[in-house]
């Protein structure tokens, strides 16, 4: 019992507090959370993309296609898992696992809150970069193991792309890390939590720091991360019209879904890096400008309001369902979902109110934690929406254009930003 409650008294992530049980619980929560997030993302992407493209998207499986991701997952699991005869079976088998592991391992250091992370590593951002760069191995081996031309070209493209954009990405990250040393102590940090705390101490999100330097670095990262995750408009490795499906052309069934899972997990991971480094991580908007208990309370209502809004939308959706008896079960399901969302909203509201009235209560700690996680996820969700938006809006770059953008535009700019940041930092100090 002591070990169960011990975590609540600690201000450190469980990994750092030496609390292995809670670290394990966090790992499970994060894994499950990311898996659910990928499912949600799947549905939202299809729906949002559909509405961009004046169509409805999935509508059949469950009300408004809400169960579509589950149906897809089930289908992919039941689908025959083909290994081409000439493929290298072992490597073919290992490749998606490498990609998935790399994508999921980075979540260890992602700080959802000052103590809401598995662990806080001293080398956090370096670890994230390193592990996410392992994802390229999965792609290269997948392309090679398929023993086919299209996957091979896709894999080579993909790895070349990821390696070249990693450089610009790293430069942008370094300029943000240099900003962490602009506090009183004058010592920077690589720790993810430390980076957010540095922003807290300096009272500014790094995107606004040394304006426009922080913003440029952020923009470079935001572009490079799209390339890094092979999403449109940099989705050449999977360019359907050119290479059928790129490195996973020969994959099917569960293994293919592992690639998809890895891709989406990587998207969330890089968005988390962007949020942590430039957008203040778990901090709510304007923590310095609009402070005081009243503002604190207002901002702590946001999670409840979000869920309340979702519940409202779902209720409206339920009311607008066609009234034929055919839709009765769907209506009931949607209604239950709406009630569930409303219930969560009420619970969050309760926690917010109780936590506000009594600062010492356990509800106050819960409220804090919920706030942190909510704002973090909120910011990440914006990026996820941007990913969908890009995909709906832009055509695809050509390979040489992609490379020239990476090496001739992004790299010089990021180097310039890095140098300027250093100069400005030294001058201000």
């Amino acid at each position: 019992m002591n070990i169960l409650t011990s975590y609540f008294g600690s201000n450190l992530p469980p990994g750092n507090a030496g609390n292995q049980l809670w670290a394990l619980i966090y790992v499970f929560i994060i894994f499950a959370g990311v898996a659910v997030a990928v499912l949600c993302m799947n549905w939202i992407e299809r729906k949002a993309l559909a509405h961009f493209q004046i169509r409805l998207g999935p509508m059949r499986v469950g009300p408004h296609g809400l169960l579509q991701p589950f149906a897809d997952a089930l289908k992919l699991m039941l689908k025959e898992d083909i290994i081409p005869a000439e493929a290298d079976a072992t490597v073919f088998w290992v490749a998606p696992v490498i990609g998935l592991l790399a994508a999921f391992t980075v979540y260890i250091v992602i700080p959802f809150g000052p103590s809401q992370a598995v662990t806080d590593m001293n080398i956090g951002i370096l670890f994230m970069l390193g592990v996410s760069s392992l994802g390229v191995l999965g792609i290269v081996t997948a392309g090679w193991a398929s023993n086919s031309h299209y996957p091979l070209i896709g894999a080579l493209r993909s790895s070349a792309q990821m390696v070249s954009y990693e450089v610009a990405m790293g430069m942008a990250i370094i300029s943000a890390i240099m900003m962490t040393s602009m506090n009183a102590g004058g010592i920077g940090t690589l720790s993810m939590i430390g980076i957010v705390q540095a922003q807290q101490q300096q009272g500014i999100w790094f995107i606004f720091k040394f304006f426009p330097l922080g913003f440029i670095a952020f923009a470079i990262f935001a572009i490079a991360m799209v390339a890094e995750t092979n999403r449109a408009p940099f989705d050449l490795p999977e360019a359907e019209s050119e290479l059928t499906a790129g490195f996973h052309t020969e994959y099917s069934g569960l293994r293919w879904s592992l690639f998809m899972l890895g891709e989406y997990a990587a998207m969330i991971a890089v968005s988390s890096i962007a949020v942590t480094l430039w957008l203040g991580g778990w901090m709510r908007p304007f923590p310095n400008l609009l402070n005081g208990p009243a503002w604190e309370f207002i901002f702590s209502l946001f999670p409840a309001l979000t869920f309340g809004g979702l519940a409202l939308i779902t209720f409206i959706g339920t009311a607008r369902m066609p009234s034929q008896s055919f839709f009765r079960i769907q209506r009931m399901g949607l209604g239950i979902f709406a009630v569930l969302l409303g219930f969560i909203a009420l619970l969050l509201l309760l926690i917010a109110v109780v936590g506000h009235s009594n600062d010492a209560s356990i509800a106050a700690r819960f409220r804090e934690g919920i706030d942190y996680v909510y704002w973090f996820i909120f910011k990440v969700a914006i990026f996820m929406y941007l990913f969908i938006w890009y995909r709906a809006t832009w055509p695809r770059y050509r390979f040489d254009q992609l490379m020239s953008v990476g090496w001739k535009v992004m790299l010089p700019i990021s180097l310039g930003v890095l140098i300027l940041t250093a100069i400005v930092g030294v001058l201000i100090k």
Partner: protein
Amino acid sequence: MNPLLMNPAVNAGSAPVATPFFFYFLAGAAVVSGLFVITRRNAVHSALALIVTLLSVAGLYLMLYAPFVAGVQIIAYAGGIMVLFLFVIMLVDIERVSKERQYNRVWPVGLLAACALLALFVSAIVKGRSLLPDRMVQLPESSNTQQIAAALYGEAGRVGQYTFAFEIASLLLLVAILGAVIMTKKKI
């Protein structure tokens, strides 16, 4: 990778993470996959085994409270050098090579020499084990990166101990890049 393994025990005095289990697990993985590296026919399999070795060694670094070196190991070795290896393996025709004879004609001699080396190591370790302390010094892990930075770049206005060597290393990398480009390019 097991997240518990990353448990860096920032607060000195908390439970040590360098538990024997993890050590033996990582050491075993490193040696077994090292064996795979030198025995596989297919170079891609060798490369994948080498990646396992490298990651295991990175884990050992973490257990030795050298997180920065572990990070460099992952990002430079596993993420950089091994991708280069895989690229080259894909470019050259390994299909044919993997069907040919794998070991050179003088392999018994090589093996013998390696065994002699092993004997040397064993004797050195056996003879010298009394010199090695049983307990290890607790390094401050949380400031590891800062300390390495101080050694490489210097701190408080002073040039670091290794700054010059570091610059030389960057020059070495530059030369290597140029050399690789010149050798690989058909016409420049």
